[in-house]
Every structure is written in structure tokens, then in C-alpha cells.
């Protein structure tokens, strides 16, 4: 829907983005998913109640019912507050990675896709820091073979996508592709990667307001942010190790924008707090 200005302001050239770069059309897309919860897209949409059933969901019920999630590579050690029956049978991390690659190839064949993109919209995993297993592609392969604890499920999905030559986008705050080994795999495979953590709500507002304060050189003493959420995202974040991953992603932005090193009097002592509360009535 967005336009892009070309040339000088007076030229009045503002075509739609999709008319000037060759984007795939929405009607050319097909959707698939992995999910430990076995609900079809229709069941999930009705149960979550985000969209209006009569206005939004029923008119496309046929398509939504056709989207059945594939069994997930899931490990509760990395997402403790989540469980579901639609998971691949326990095996080694190498077995799971290969099973995901097989899923990708079968999906491509079943839907006659020319191209695929994998995008992670999964729940937040526990906080992990980059370690030796993440430093290069060889170490990553060895860690997958060794069933190393530093390889969470999200990395198996990313690994599977990159090895199949597919772009991978990380919409969650989990470590996943934010390590040298994944950047190396992407470079070798010639595929783009990007992440992490969709900027959809509170941080979106923060990254608009903070530049305003800085543009006027208005000092800041503190910024208190609280997130009250009652959906499954909130439930997962009720685990301190998962919320730590999320809070880390949210905390960095102010320091980068306000440059306290350049403006110590204005921004040298900002108290930035980020809290996340699980509150089921606000689902």
C-alpha cells in the first residue's frame, strides 16, 4: 500500500512500492506452518478471537481450514510454559534438522512453489548467549551432531532453511540467526537473513518519541515501560528466562538513539525500565 518518492520533491513521482520493484503478489502466496498446537489456521483464528468471526474469518474459512500445521521440532526446555501434542517424535537434533528439511522439500513439491521464505513467529525461547558452537558453520554442524544444549529448536529451523537455500527472518527475540555461524551459512548459500524481534508495539512508539526528544534536545530522566499481555505470548514470557530474552531486546533501543556519550548532561543518567506482566484478562 505504501508509496515511494522518486526524484526531487517537486517532481510528484510517488509510485506504489509494488509497482516499481518486482514483489510477489499476495495472491501468489501459499502458507504453511509448524506448530506444536495442532489447530488449523481456522481453529486458531476462531479461538484467539482477535479477528471478528463473521466479518473476517468465515469468508475465508475454506482457505484457513486448509492450513494444517506440520509437527513442530519442539523442546520444552527452551520454552517452558508451552506444550502441545503436534511435535516430531523425540530424536537427535540432527534428526530434527533433517526432518525439517524434508518438510520444506515436501511442502515445495506439494504446492509447486517456485520460491520459499521461512519466517519465525514463534514464542520467545529462554535467554541464550552466543557461545563456541555458534562461531562458525563447522562448529554449528558439530554441535548439532553432538546434541549440544546451546542449539535451541529455533536454530534447527534456521539451519534447515539456510541449508535448503531459503531466506530466514526472525520475528522473535530469540538468538536463532544472530550468531556468526548463521551469517556464514547464509553467505555461503547466497540467501538473505534478517532479525530480530518484530517492532510492532511499545518499541515502535519508543523509537518515534525518543527521536523527537533528541531533535529538540530535551533531556530525559527516566522511561518506565510496562507491557500487560494475556495471550500465549504473555504466558510464555511469564517464565523469567524467556522474559529476560525479551527485555534485552527492548532495552537496547534508548541508549542507541539518545547517544548519552555525546550528550551526557541530557541523557547520561536515564533510568530505563522495561517490565512484562502476564495478565490473562487482557488476552
Amino acid at each position, binding site marked *: 500500500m505504501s508509496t515511494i518518492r522518486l526524484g526531487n520533491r517537486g517532481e510528484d513521482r510517488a509510485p506504489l512500492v509494488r509497482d516499481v520493484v518486482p514483489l510477489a503478489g499476495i495472491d501468489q502466496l501459499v502458507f504453511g506452518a509448524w506448530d506444536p498446537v495442532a489447530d488449523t489456521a481456522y481453529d486458531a483464528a476462531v479461538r484467539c478471537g482477535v479477528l471478528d468471526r463473521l466479518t473476517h474469518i468465515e469468508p475465508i474459512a475454506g482457505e484457513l481450514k486448509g492450513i494444517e500445521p506440520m509437527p513442530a521440532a519442539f523442546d520444552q526446555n527452551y520454552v517452558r510454559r508451552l506444550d502441545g501434542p503436534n511435535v516430531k517424535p523425540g530424536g537427535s537434533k540432527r534428526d530434527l534438522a533433517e526432518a525439517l528439511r524434508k518438510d520444506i522439500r515436501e511442502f515445495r513439491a506439494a504446492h509447486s512453489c517456485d520460491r520459499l521464505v521461512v519466517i519465525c513467529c514463534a514464542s520467545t525461547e529462554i535467554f541464550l548467549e552466543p557461545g563456541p558452537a555458534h562461531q562458525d558453520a563447522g562448529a554449528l554442524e558439530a554441535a548439532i551432531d553432538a546434541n549440544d544444549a546451546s542449539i535451541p529448536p529455533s536454530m534447527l529451523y534456521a539451519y534447515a532453511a539456510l541449508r535448503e537455500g531459503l531466506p530466514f527472518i526472525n520475528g522473535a527475540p530469540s538468538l536463532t540467526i544472530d550468531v556468526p555461524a548463521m551469517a556464514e551459512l547464509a553467505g555461503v548459500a547466497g540467501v538473505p537473513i534478517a532479525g530480530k524481534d518484530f517492532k*510492532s508495539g511499545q518499541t515502535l*512508539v519508543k523509537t518515534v518519541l525518543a527521536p523527537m526528544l533528541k531533535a529538540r534536545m530535551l533531556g530525559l530522566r527516566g522511561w518506565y515501560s510496562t507491557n500487560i499481555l494475556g495471550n500465549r505470548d504473555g504466558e510464555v514470557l511469564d517464565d523469567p528466562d524467556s522474559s529476560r530474552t525479551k527485555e534485552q531486546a527492548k532495552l537496547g533501543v534508548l541508549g542507541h538513539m539518545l547517544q548519552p556519550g555525546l550528550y551526557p548532561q541530557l541523557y547520561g543518567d536515564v533510568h530505563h525500565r522495561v517490565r512484562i506482566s502476564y495478565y490473562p484478562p487482557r488476552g
Partner: protein
Amino acid sequence: MQIKVDFLCRDSILAAPLVFDLVLFADLAQRAGLAGVQGWLSFYFKSPQLLPGAHAEHDLFIQRAELENTLRALMGEEARP
């Protein structure tokens, strides 16, 4: 001075358009031969992943300018502020 924002929203409705944009742009990037970390997509992320040594940009409007200038470059147009 105090600013209070009460942003009551449905996160999945805010996230869905990001999913579409990112899938379409990732596919475009691949066809354009752009491999590895795509810093120009920072616009969509809280914690943008960057190449080693690159400076993180969080200001939404600077991020949008980077996104648009990458698209302009892909179509052979000049960068704009």
C-alpha cells in the same frame, strides 16, 4: 514534564503486515542477489541484526529512509534523504 502513552492494541494485528512485508522483501532480496544479514530491514525489528562493526539504528524514520534508499538502489534510482 511527563508524557504518558496508553497503547491498547492487538499485537497480532500489528505484526501481520510486518510478516507480509518481510516475506516479500526477503524474496525480493534473494532474487536481487543480496545474501547474508540485511541491515536495511531494521525498520521492522526491535533489535536489528547487523554485520559485525555496523552501527545499530533504531530511529524509525532513519530506518525507513534506509529501507527506501535500498529499494531506490534496486530500481536504479538515486538515494533521497
